[in-house]
């Protein structure tokens, strides 16, 4: 191993990269676009507000107060529907998925129950809904729980079962804070894998590797400089993503040495996989296809974009065999939960994996011509 040679190779790679404007744009801009896109989607989910149409057929103070209560709950933005309108037709014509109908006699029945304690006095609220809408069942669940609360209060008895929410985290986190570490892991993976595969096949096809094999640079020097190069790009990419996340979404993430450690392990693991793929898929097109075949399942099944708990059981088991899952978990343990033991456990798992594939990658990388 010769540090001068590694340094010379690193400088050339960085110079070449800095002059490839398109590549540079996609390496840095693509993860930032993902952060902005998914961040915006998930941020709105954290403060979700549903649109609710209400038709008040009673037109009394009590019915108006009830509508106000729904509005103040913060979950609904209310649109009032003219009592003369046919609610079913209104749903069809206005492309809304739910109209809640407060019946005529609402206030009278309420007074009977409240003042006269008549247990038979009740009202029936009607939901006119479009079952093809995906959010309508959520709306109805929320409305049912609101009405259950009102019924409970009116019964005059304290509830038997109460619930209390207690987060395992000391701070309140939003989904974006769980999302950013996953995108960092995914971006570094993509960068390392595709860059290794693209660069190695291109340099081999152009004969640059053959020329290099007639110089004192060794296979180890070449691979180490490649690791350093990918690590530097990974760090630049991560800094860009974090800056955007802080500036746009005001995220609250813990940054320490674990972040660099996981970027390095991510780079080692996927440069190793890239070197193995390059050995078996020597043409640029087949190598890129092989890299896609590896990266796509990793992206979608290892919990970068959404929690693996949303997947069927067998896919959850499969997800836990993927290296990116442990990078995701490790980064979240370090950046969100600040759990050093969990980060250490995940680092150990991905570290062993990285060591194995990296050694296999070194063995697979042919420096001399093999035919």
């Amino acid at each position, binding site marked *: 191993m010769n540090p001068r*040679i590694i340094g010379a190779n690193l400088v050339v790679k960085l110079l070449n990269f800095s002059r490839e404007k398109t590549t540079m744009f996609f390496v840095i801009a693509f993860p930032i676009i993902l952060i902005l896109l998914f961040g915006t989607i998930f941020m709105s989910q954290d403060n979700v507000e549903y649109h609710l149409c209400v038709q008040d057929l009673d037109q009394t103070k009590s019915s108006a107060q009830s509508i106000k209560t729904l509005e103040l709950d913060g979950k609904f933005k209310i649109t009032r529907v003219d009592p003369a309108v046919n609610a079913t037709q209104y749903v069809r014509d206005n492309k809304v998925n739910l109209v809640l109908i407060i019946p005529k006699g609402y206030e009278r029945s309420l007074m009977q129950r409240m003042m006269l304690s008549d247990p038979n006095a009740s009202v029936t609220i009607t939901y006119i809904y479009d079952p093809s809408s995906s959010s309508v069942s959520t709306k109805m669940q929320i409305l049912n729980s609101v009405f259950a609360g009102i019924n409970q209060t009116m019964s005059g008895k304290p509830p038997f079962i109460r619930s209390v929410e207690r987060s395992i985290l000391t701070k309140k986190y939003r989904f974006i804070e769980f999302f950013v570490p996953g995108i960092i892991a995914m971006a570094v993976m993509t960068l390392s894998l595709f860059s290794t595969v693209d660069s190695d096949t291109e340099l081999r096809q152009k*004969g640059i590797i053959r020329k290099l094999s007639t*110089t004192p640079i060794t296979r180890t020097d070449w691979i180490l400089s490649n690791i350093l190069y990918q690590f530097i790009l990974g760090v630049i990419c991560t800094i860009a993503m974090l800056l955007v996340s802080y500036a746009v979404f005001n995220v609250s993430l813990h940054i320490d040495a674990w972040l660099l450690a996981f970027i390095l392990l991510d780079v080692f693991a996927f440069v190793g996989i890239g070197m193995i793929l390059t050995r078996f898929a020597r043409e640029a097109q087949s190598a890129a296809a092989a890299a896609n075949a590896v990266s796509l399942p990793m992206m979608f099944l290892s919990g970068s974009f959404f929690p693996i708990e949303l997947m069927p059981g067998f896919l959850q088991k499969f997800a836990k065999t993927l290296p990116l899952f442990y990078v995701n978990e490790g980064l979240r343990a370090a950046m969100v939960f600040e759990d050093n033991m969990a980060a250490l456990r995940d680092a150990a798992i991905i570290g062993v994996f990285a060591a194995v594939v990296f050694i296999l990658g070194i063995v697979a990388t042919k420096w001399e011509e093999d035919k």
Partner: protein
Amino acid sequence: MTKETEYVIEVDKLTKRYGDLLAVNEISFTVSKGEVFAFLGPNGAGKTTTVEIIETIRRPTSGKVTLLGMDVTKKKHDIVPRIGVLPQGFSSFDRITVRETIQYYSRLFCCINTDIDGLIELVNLKDKTKEQYKNLSSGLKQRLGIAIALVNDPEVVFLDEPTTGLDPRARHEVWEVLLGLKKEGKTVFLTTHYMEEAELLADTVAIISKGNVIAMGSPRELIENNANYLALTLQSVDGKVFEIVRKMGFEPVLDNHKNVAVRVGHTYDVQEILNAIKDAGALYLGLDVRKPNLEEVFLKLTGEALREDPPEMEPK
């Protein structure tokens, strides 16, 4: 310790197989210090395989190859710093400039005293130092490749098809650089399928065909030993000259331009033919007498012509 011998390169019964394909078949030759040695043969003859084995890029199937007194299969790390290589179809990093590329390779050899400007001047790239590799023409790329092959001031320079694919002007520019190396006394191992390149540059030419070295010697020796005749061409105005030469017992050939070509053994045969034409009152517009070249030697030895790829046009 490595053993320095009088020969810089010694190849002894070298064989290389790719599966069932026999690429190089028990070839042997030596190259002396300061010699320009050309390996001449058509595409697929085994030139590149042989040179890549000597350069330590490939491993032989059998036979022994020593370079600078060292076994190429065992002493790669000792050999590599002492040689310079321009591989076939040389390429480099697209967005690195001429100067940066030379500096990069110089650093790979850990050379702190490389005369970058001297190399740039040697290959005549002075006004292209800030040009990125991808913007260079084919000829300029090859000249850069030669400069890179010299960054470590090598004892032996290998140039594998340095002018293939270049147009005639670019080819002549590369030849000028190679003649400069020859003047400096560098040992150069050149592979080519251009006869004029071998004739112009080489002290020794080895003709290789189908994995076998079929002839070896200086260009003059090869021609004298294998094509010992004179080629007389007469520019005739009618069929009389052809008939006169034929009746004298020679075997003339008439081409579409009414040129009569005939091989003769000695200069007095030429005189005899010219006298016969004069005596018969026939006319000819011009004549050319020349010795045969390596092309004719190659044709005679192998029965096949050296294939030439169409030259690449220089970008404007």
